[in-house]
C-alpha cells in the first residue's frame, strides 16, 4: 500500500490546485511558534502598517492606575518562569519583530504597544504571574491562538500578553464518558485529531481550527460550524481550571455530566473574554465521531427558498443534520476571485447552502439524504446542487464555506458583523446594508470606491449571520456609515450584535444594543468582585 499513499499525495497535488492551501498554512494551520516566525518575516516586507488601536480609538486612554513595566519586573518574571523561551522581553532588549505577532491580530485591524510576552507552562505559573501583576497593578491580556475577530486577544496599550501556547498537554480522555481534559493552549485541531484516533469528536469546529486554542475557544464561547448539532460550549464544557487575578486557582475541572451543587461558576469564564480570569484547562464532553458524513451543496434562487430548504432539512434529516450553512452569491464570487478554484455548480445563483449530515450508518443516512434531495429538487426549492462523492469533494465543498473569511482577508480589509437575527429577517440585513452603502456612493468595482462588496453568509441553522463589508482599505467614512446603523437595525429586531465572535475592542461601545442597563451593571459588579484592580484584559467591553 505504500505506493497508494504516494499516489494519494500526488493526487492531492495534481488534482486540487488551491493557492488557498499554501496561504492557509501560514495563517491557520501552523502552530503559533512557527507562525511567529513567518509572520514577522512577512510583516517587515509589507508596506501596509497596521494602525495602532490607540490611534484608531482616540477616546481610549491608558489607565493611569496601571504601573509601567520595569526592568525589575522583567527580571522577576524571568526568574519565575525559568525557561528563557517563556519570556519575550521587549523592555530591556529590542524584540520588536518577535513581539509584533502578539501585538496585532491576523486581520491586521488591531495593534497594541506591549513590550512583554509571557508564556507560563501551567496554572501554578499563571497564578504566580497574575498575583505579582495584581500586586504591582500591571495590566495583562490573556491570549491563545490569537485568531479572534474583535481584537479581544491583543493589547491596546502596554498590557502584558500572557500567551497559553506552552500549556499544551492533553491530560486525560475517558472513552466511556467521552470526557476530554486538556490544557488551555492545546490547538483545537490537535485536540480533534487526538480524539479522532479514539473515535470521538471535539464538539466544536471552526475555520481557524489549525491555530486557535481550546482555552480561547472557551473564553470567547466560540460557536462554529456544528453548534446546530452539538450545542454551545455552555453545555458541553463540564468543568474548567482558571486563575483569578489575585492568583487564586479555581479548580472546577469536574468531569461530571450532572452536578447540581450550587452556583455553576465555570459559566462565568465561558464567553467572558478573559476579563475575570484566565482559563488554564478545560474538561469537555465529546460525542462519538460520526462514521458516515455526507455533504451537499445547493444553489437557490431566493432567500425564501433557502428558508424552505432549511425547514425541509430539519424535518427530513432531523437527527443526522449536522450543519446548515448559508453563503450568498457575492461571497462565493469573492472566493473564486481569491482562490481561482472552479465553482462546483455550472450556473450562478444568488444563494448557496451547504448541508451536512453525520450519522452512524452510511446506508441509513444516504437513504434519508436521497429522499430529502429528491424532495427539495422535485419541489423546486433547490435550483441545482451537488453531492460529494468522496472525501476530497467533501473537503473541497466545505472550503467554499470555510474559505470565505480567509478569501476576504486577501482582498483587503473586512468590517465584520456577527449577528443573531430572527431567521425570516436574516438576509434582509445584508440587502439593507448594501442599499445604504450604495446610496452613500461607497460601493463600486474600481479602486476609487472604498467598499468592494457587501456579503452575507453564516450559520443558518443557528440564525447567525455574518455580515461582511469587504473594503479596499479600512476607513472611518465606511465605519461611520455602518455603525451604529447596523446595531440599531439589530436592536429593532431584538437580535444580538455579537452571536459568537464576542465584543472585544470592536464592539466595546455597543454592548447596550443587546444587553440592558441592569445586565451591564451586574456584569460590572462581577468584574469588580473578581478583578478589583481591573488588570484583566482592560479597555475591552467591560
Amino acid at each position, binding site marked *: *500500500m*505504500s*505506493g*497508494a*499513499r504516494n*499516489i*494519494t499525495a*500526488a*493526487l492531492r497535488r*495534481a*488534482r486540487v490546485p488551491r493557492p488557498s492551501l499554501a496561504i492557509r498554512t501560514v495563517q491557520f494551520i501552523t502552530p503559533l511558534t512557527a507562525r511567529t516566525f513567518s509572520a514577522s518575516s512577512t510583516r517587515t516586507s509589507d508596506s501596509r502598517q497596521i494602525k495602532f488601536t490607540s490611534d484608531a480609538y482616540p477616546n481610549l486612554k491608558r489607565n493611569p492606575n496601571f504601573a509601567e513595566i520595569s526592568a525589575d519586573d522583567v527580571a522577576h518574571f524571568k526568574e519565575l518562569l525559568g*525557561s*528563557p*523561551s517563556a519570556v519575550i522581553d521587549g523592555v530591556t532588549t529590542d524584540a520588536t519583530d518577535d513581539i509584533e505577532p502578539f501585538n496585532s491580530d491576523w486581520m491586521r485591524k488591531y495593534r497594541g504597544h506591549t513590550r512583554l510576552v509571557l508564556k507560563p507552562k501551567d496554572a501554578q505559573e499563571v497564578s504566580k504571574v497574575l498575583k505579582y501583576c495584581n500586586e504591582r497593578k500591571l495590566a495583562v491580556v490573556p491570549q491563545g491562538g490569537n485568531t479572534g475577530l474583535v481584537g479581544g486577544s491583543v493589547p491596546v496599550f502596554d498590557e502584558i500578553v500572557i500567551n497559553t501556547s506552552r500549556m499544551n498537554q492533553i491530560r486525560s480522555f475517558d472513552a466511556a464518558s467521552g470526557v476530554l481534559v486538556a490544557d488551555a493552549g492545546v490547538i483545537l485541531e490537535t485536540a480533534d485529531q487526538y480524539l479522532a484516533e479514539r473515535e470521538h469528536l471535539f464538539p466544536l469546529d471552526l475555520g481557524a481550527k489549525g491555530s486557535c486554542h481550546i482555552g480561547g475557544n472557551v473564553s470567547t464561547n466560540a460557536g462554529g460550524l456544528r453548534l446546530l448539532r452539538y450545542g454551545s460550549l455552555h453545555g458541553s464544557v463540564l468543568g474548567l481550571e482558571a486563575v483569578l487575578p489575585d492568583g487564586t486557582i479555581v479548580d472546577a475541572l469536574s468531569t461530571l455530566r450532572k452536578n447540581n451543587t450550587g452556583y455553576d461558576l465555570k459559566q462565568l469564564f465561558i464567553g467572558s473574554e478573559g476579563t475575570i480570569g484566565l482559563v488554564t484547562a478545560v474538561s469537555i464532553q465529546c460525542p462519538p465521531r460520526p*462514521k458516515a458524513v455526507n455533504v*451537499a*451543496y*445547493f444553489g437557490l434562487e431566493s432567500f425564501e427558498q433557502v428558508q424552505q430548504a432549511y425547514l425541509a432539512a430539519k424535518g427530513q434529516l432531523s437527527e443526522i443534520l449536522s450543519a446548515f450553512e448559508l453563503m450568498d452569491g457575492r461571497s462565493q464570487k469573492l472566493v473564486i476571485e481569491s482562490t481561482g478554484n*472552479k465553482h*462546483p*455548480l*455550472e450556473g450562478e445563483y444568488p444563494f448557496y447552502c451547504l448541508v451536512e449530515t453525520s450519522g452512524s450508518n*452510511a446506508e441509513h443516512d444516504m437513504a434519508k439524504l*436521497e429522499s430529502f*434531495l*429528491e424532495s427539495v*429538487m422535485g419541489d423546486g426549492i*433547490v435550483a*441545482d*446542487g*451537488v*453531492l*460529494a*462523492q*468522496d*472525501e*476530497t*469533494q467533501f*473537503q473541497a465543498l466545505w472550503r467554499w464555506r470555510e474559505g470565505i473569511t480567509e478569501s476576504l482577508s486577501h482582498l483587503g480589509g473586512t468590517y465584520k458583523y456577527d449577528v443573531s437575527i430572527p431567521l425570516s429577517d436574516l438576509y434582509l440585513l445584508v440587502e439593507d446594508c448594501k442599499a445604504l452603502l450604495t446610496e452613500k456612493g461607497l460601493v463600486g468595482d474600481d479602486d476609487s470606491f472604498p467598499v468592494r462588496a457587501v456579503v452575507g453568509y453564516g450559520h443558518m441553522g443557528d440564525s447567525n449571520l455574518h455580515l461582511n463589508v469587504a473594503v479596499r482599505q479600512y476607513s472611518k467614512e465606511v465605519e461611520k456609515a455602518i455603525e451604529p446603523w447596523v446595531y440599531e437595525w439589530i436592536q429593532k429586531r431584538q437580535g444580538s450584535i455579537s452571536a459568537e465572535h464576542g465584543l472585544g475592542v470592536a464592539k466595546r461601545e455597543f454592548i447596550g444594543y443587546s444587553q440592558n442597563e441592569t445586565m451591564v451593571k451586574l456584569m460590572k459588579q462581577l468584574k469588580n468582585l473578581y478583578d478589583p484592580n481591573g488588570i484583566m484584559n482592560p479597555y475591552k467591553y467591560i
Partner: protein
Amino acid sequence: MSGLRILVPVKRVIDYAIKPRINKAQTGVETAGVKHSLNPFDELSIEEAVRLRERKGPIKVEDILALSAGGPKCPDVLRTAMAMGADRAFHIDVPDKGDGGPEPLTIAKMLQAVVKEQNVNLVLLGKQAIDGDQGQTGQMLAGLLGWPQATQASKVDIKDDAGTVEITHEVDGGVETLRAKLPMVITTDLRLNEPRYASLPNIMKAKKKPLEKKTLADLGVEDTRRLKTLKVTEPPPRKGGGKVEDVDGLVSKLKELGAL
C-alpha cells in the same frame, strides 16, 4: 467510422483521502467500515469519456458503458459514474473472497469479452487502481485484443472521422505525443482533466439508467489466481523528532550530533 462506443471500467476502492490500515491477520487491508469511493484514476476516465461526447468532435460518442467487478456495493460507484455522464453500467458480480479480488489478467480477459460482446471501439481506463497498484490491466487488455495502446494519457484528441487519435502523455522531462487509430486502449493519468461533481439532477437521472448484473461465467471467464499474498505489513513507523526548548538548545543539540 460510425460512432464511438466507449467502455470505462471502474473500481470501488478505499477513499484515497483515508489512511488504509492493515488487518489483524496481515493478509490485506482492513476494508470493513472504511469509506470507499470511485478509484480516482477511473473518475478521470469517466470524465474524459463524457468530455469526448460534449466536445462534439469528428466522431460522435454513441455509448458510454461503465463497468465494475466486485461485491454488492459496486453499484454505488457505477451510479456515481452514471451521474457523471455514463449511459449505462454493467456490474460483474464477483463475491469478495478476501484475497484482494481477481488478478489483472482475469479482469483483462473479462473486459476483452465485454469489448467483443458490446462492440466497443475505445476503452478508457485508469492507469491503475489505488488499492492494488498493479497498473497492468490496460496493457494486458490491449495485448489480448491486439489493439494499439496509449498509457498515462494527459490529453486525448480525436483528429478525424477515420478514427485517428492523438494522445499526449508525460514522460521524464517532458511530454510525448502519440498517434494511433481506433479501436484502441487508453489509460488515464492525473493531469488529463478535473472531474466534475455529480449534480443532484444527474444523480436522480442516474438511478433510472440501466444497470445490468452479470457474472464472470456469463462472459466465459474463470477467476484463476497465479499469485498468493503471503503477508501484508505496514512500513516501519517513522521515528519522531526531538523538541528543543530554544535556540541555545538547538545549537547544543546540533553540536552534540556533530552537525556544527
